[in-house]
């Protein structure tokens, strides 16, 4: 194709938007809102996921080991636990240290009471974290079969909640994304239908003088893509404001994160490039695909 033709086609695309400005504006708005909603729900999912991951990282299983093991036996056991695929970290937590910590957290009276207890009743333990929290139960069950292990304790309830929360999150954000993409496709394809209708005379003549279908389609394609990209730009701007608003609230006034000991939300500048690229790509793609639905059947002459 010649440069002059390409220029002509792009020009036609822009002209189409202007000729059809009411419909173009409508689909711009719908796409903007949809992209915004999709973007915000995905961002929310990403952040919740990060928080959940933070909590998961913190959730440890405790392996109580038999009393009176030699250091060599203990090292051997540690190695054995470490060799399990799902085990992420293993940390030895001696009974002396446990005692110390316990006493530290006691009230003065309790401390006085325990001061003279010279026999430390606490066991030696390993604190382990796992890679995949869904399989934590299997992992602890396996550890229990080891010779020098007395028992294990894992925060089962919490992990179950986290796992199902995460699943829900994926399903929910997936459903929102799919629903909104369908809405966008329908809207864009209707806009194109209107645009094709206003230019049907021109298209009819183009067909008679031997225009290829691709030549007729390209302006509509461009029209849809431009609307999509503009909507993506608008949505990006609004997402930035909305996200930063939420981010600031959580950052300034919430000490919850530090209480839970989990990481904060991602700052927007870390996500900007990814969000921008996905918005523009989605906008352009929906714009282009949406137009092809309705140009197809109008081209038969």
């Amino acid at each position, binding site marked *: *194709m*010649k440069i*002059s*033709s390409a220029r*002509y086609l792009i020009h036609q695309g822009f002209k189409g938007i202007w000729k059809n400005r009411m419909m173009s504006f409508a689909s711009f708005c719908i796409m903007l809102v949809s992209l915004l909603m999709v973007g915000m729900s995905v961002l929310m999912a990403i952040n919740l996921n990060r928080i959940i991951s933070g909590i998961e990282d913190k959730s440890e299983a405790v392996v109580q080991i038999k009393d009176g093991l030699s250091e060599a036996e203990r090292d051997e056991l540690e190695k054995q636990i470490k060799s399990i695929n799902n085990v992420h970290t293993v940390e030895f937590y001696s009974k002396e240290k446990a005692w110390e910590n316990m006493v530290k957290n006691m009230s003065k009276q309790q401390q006085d009471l325990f001061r003279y207890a010279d026999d430390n009743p606490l066991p030696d333990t390993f604190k382990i974290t796992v890679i995949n929290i869904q399989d934590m139960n299997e992992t602890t069950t396996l550890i229990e079969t080891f010779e020098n292990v007395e028992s294990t304790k894992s925060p089962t309830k919490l992990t179950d909640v986290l796992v199902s929360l995460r699943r829900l999150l994926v399903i929910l954000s997936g459903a929102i994304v799919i629903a909104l993409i369908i809405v966008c496709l329908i809207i864009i394809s209707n806009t194109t239908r209107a645009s094709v209708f206003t230019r049907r*005379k*021109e298209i*009819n*003549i*183009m*067909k*008679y*003088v*031997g*225009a*290829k*279908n691709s*030549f007729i389609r390209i302006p509509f394609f461009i029209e849809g893509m431009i609307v999509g990209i503009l909507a993506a730009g608008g949505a990006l701007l609004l997402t930035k404001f909305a996200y930063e608003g939420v981010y600031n609230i959580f950052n300034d006034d919430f000490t919850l994160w530090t209480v839970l000991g989990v990481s904060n939300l991602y700052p927007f500048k870390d996500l900007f490039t990814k969000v921008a690229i996905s918005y523009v790509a989605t906008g352009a793609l929906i714009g282009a695909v949406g137009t092809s639905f309705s140009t197809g059947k109008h081209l038969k*002459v």
Partner: protein
Amino acid sequence: MVEFKDVSVTYSSGVDALNRVNLKINDGDFAFVVGPSGAGKSTLIKLILKEIDATSGEVTVNGFNLRKLKRRKVPALRRTIGVVFQDFRLIPTMTVYENVAFVLRVIDAPAKYIRSRVPYVINLVGLSKKAKSYPNELSGGEQQRVALARALVNDPQLIIADEPTGNIDPALSYEIVGLLKGINECGTTILMVTHEHELVRYFGGRIININSGNIAFDEVVGGTNEDQ
């Protein structure tokens, strides 16, 4: 060259529009197609443009066998044909120049060629002064001359015109046919459908009369304009 071999067309409504038509139009011919309303004249033209397909029989146009021609090759066929319609079909938002140039853009012609070819053709139909006007600023005859320029601009082998004078003043009809005759003298084959017997009688030439889907008459007749 256009050739029909045993061509029949039956529309989905059940109407038999053409009935085993055999017809050959050679390169350089000028033929009038006449006949009563509903006879099948427009159907004949739609076949040539491959707007519809023959129910049976073979249609060959400018070397294309239309039965075998694939959908995506139809543009190639149409680029060898110029079409003029009764209702002009100009694009109202484009000037005369743009209406004509548009055809060349569509077939991806070089910009330089467009710039020289379009004014030449507009001059040929005598509308140089109106090149910047819009269709609604022109008379019917002038609009039809723009349509003619548009059909010509691509230098087609064949021009088909379905009642090109149907919507314009009878006096101006002679002017349009005169232009078509001039184009024909330069070697372009012309097929013109018309209801105006006066016009046919005046110009003469090959006359194909279609009646209820059959060719009732196909002969070359001398025109009265040559009698004087």
